[in-house]
């Protein structure tokens, strides 16, 4: 079990190293930062001075060592566009994105699992059919369409929720939260629904499919033949068996929530990392792009590790290694 975790940690480290190498390549060989930062009329001397100041004249290996060293010190360079340290920019934007992703993930998991259980346990009920159809459409619709649709209906026509922004936020040291103010809560509803819808439908379909599989197994038949209560059979016995395959997919997809938040944040003008990333691309702001890339990779790696640990907690067969090594008859 320990070796399993160590192996996974080593893999995670390898992934992070290769992503930071990609980021370094991006940093040093794509585009000309001097071109981006100075007006077209700047003199050659000024350009050369800036080049020297940015350390772009050093040899490649020196630059890579410097790059890694800077990362280790939490120094990700200055944004070409804003001229401010990237880590400062990220820290400002991070709370907004994390709050959005967290609320969306909770929506998706709670509602998705509830609807999946409901339609798995009563597959012929009207509610189950409606959610089945809804999920088919939900998987096919582009995120921005859902966001714009929600804004049109609930902001423009009905005026229930704000269409843009994050509302009022409260500052705790470096963390700003919108979850403690009325306007902040109102503002997060539509973006969170938009972001969660894809994952919600996915979770629902997955839970439903797995539950239908599990309900056919011998151990559930045997549990019913022992007269156990429905609550115990469905919500404890069958549910845990359903979770095993569902967790992998959920783990991977929570990572893509972070990626899809780029679109949601653009639709709702949500002041998070995704919006910053899109701006960075439009202005070819390489340090911001590279840092965002490393951050997303980090999120993916961390989530994968969490999924592995959850697996161990749920499935005892994994804890003993290959399994099935019990005593003979």
């Amino acid at each position: 079990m320990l070796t399993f975790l160590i192996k996974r940690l080593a893999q995670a480290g390898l992934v992070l190293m290769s992503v930071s190498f990609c980021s370094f390549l991006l940093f040093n060989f794509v585009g000309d930062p001097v071109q981006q930062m100075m007006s077209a009329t700047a003199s050659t001397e000024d350009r050369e001075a800036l080049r020297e100041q940015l350390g772009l004249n050093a040899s490649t290996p020196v630059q890579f060592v410097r790059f890694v060293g800077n990362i280790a010190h939490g120094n990700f360079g200055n944004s070409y566009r804003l001229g401010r340290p990237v880590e400062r920019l990220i820290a400002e934007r991070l709370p907004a994105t994390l709050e959005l992703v967290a609320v969306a993930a909770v929506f998706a998991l709670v509602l998705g699992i509830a609807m999946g259980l409901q339609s798995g346990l009563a597959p012929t009920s009207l509610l189950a059919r409606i959610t089945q159809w809804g999920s088919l459409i939900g998987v096919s619709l582009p995120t921005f369409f859902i966001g714009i649709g929600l804004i049109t209906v609930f902001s423009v026509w009905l005026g229930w929720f704000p269409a843009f922004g994050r509302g009022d936020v409260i500052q705790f040291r470096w963390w700003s939260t919108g979850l403690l103010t009325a306007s902040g809560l109102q503002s997060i509803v539509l973006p969170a629904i938009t972001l969660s819808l894809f994952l919600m439908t996915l979770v629902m379909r997955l839970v439903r499919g797995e539950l239908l599989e599990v309900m056919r197994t011998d151990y559930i038949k045997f549990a019913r033949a022992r007269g156990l209560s429905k609550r115990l059979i469905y919500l404890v016995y069958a549910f845990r068996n359903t979770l095993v395959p569902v967790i992998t997919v959920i783990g991977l997809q929570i990572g893509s929530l972070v990626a899809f938040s780029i679109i949601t944040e653009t639709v709702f003008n949500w002041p998070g990392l995704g919006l910053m990333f899109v701006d960075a691309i439009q202005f070819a702001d390489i340090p911001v792009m590279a840092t965002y890339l490393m951050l997303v990779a980090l999120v993916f790696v961390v989530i994968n590790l969490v999924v592995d640990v959850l697996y161990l907690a749920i499935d005892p067969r994994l804890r003993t290694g290959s399994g099935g090594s019990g005593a003979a008859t």
Partner: protein
Amino acid sequence: MLLRSMSESHLWHSLRQSVTTMAALLALTVLVVGAVFSPWLAPTNPFDVASLDLLNASMPPSWLPGGDFKFLLGTDAQGRDMLSAIMFGMRISLIVGLCSVALAMAIGITLGLTAGYAGGSVDAFIMRFADVQLAFPSILLALLISGIARSTLSSQTYQASALWVVVLAIGLSTWVLFARPVRAACMVEKTKDYVHAARLLGLGRVTILLRHILPNVLGSVLVIATLGLGVSVLIEASLSFLGVGMPPTQPSLGTLVSSGRDYIAAGEWWMTLFPALTVAVLVLSVNLLGDWLRDALNPRLRLAR
């Protein structure tokens, strides 16, 4: 060869059995005809600046108060007819989508066949690469590629080649869809007797791959290509919506959604909702058709994703 080998009547029969698929096919036909023949079918030419009249700007759809029957779906802030803009935009969306699928297919089939036929370390290298890429959402990758293109090309070059940059970005981020099933099918096929026989006859590798193995994986490729078209159109729309896809001078559906977005707050929702709705119907019908094709060609086929 593929379509002829399975009886057409069987396909047609299973098509008619599904009302949803028929509806999807109908919707797709209407959209594609409207897009392809937009220069002749569209009420106006949205690119003809001379025909624009600011007096017609921001008119709502014709059935709402203030609407004009001339502009069925309303007009944008420049007085451009939305219906015409959508028809021309869809043309660009479809061109980008089809080219991206073609590119992804070319890369995916080549690498998939190579990996499946060669095996060993070549296979391991290609597939490890594919795994890593698959873990990364393709929209993020496409964003990155288009961002890199933006910073390496001068802005004039970029404007001129925007379409090919988008195609490259989408193609490079979706080829894995093709590579994995092609590799799997190739590994199955290469152990079969007829491939052994071909090898004993002294046929070259490339000949065996193209003449004998490729035709056998075409069924799966066709299904993935259909579903991949939906994915590509969606990514293109998302890129353009984010402002890093097609520029306003060559507006795709996503560009229209993006430029109309600023007017939602003013209550002028039609400028963005109608193009968005078109993308949704387009992608939904392509997906439904792809799903049906997958089941109709082989119920046991479980390929995409």
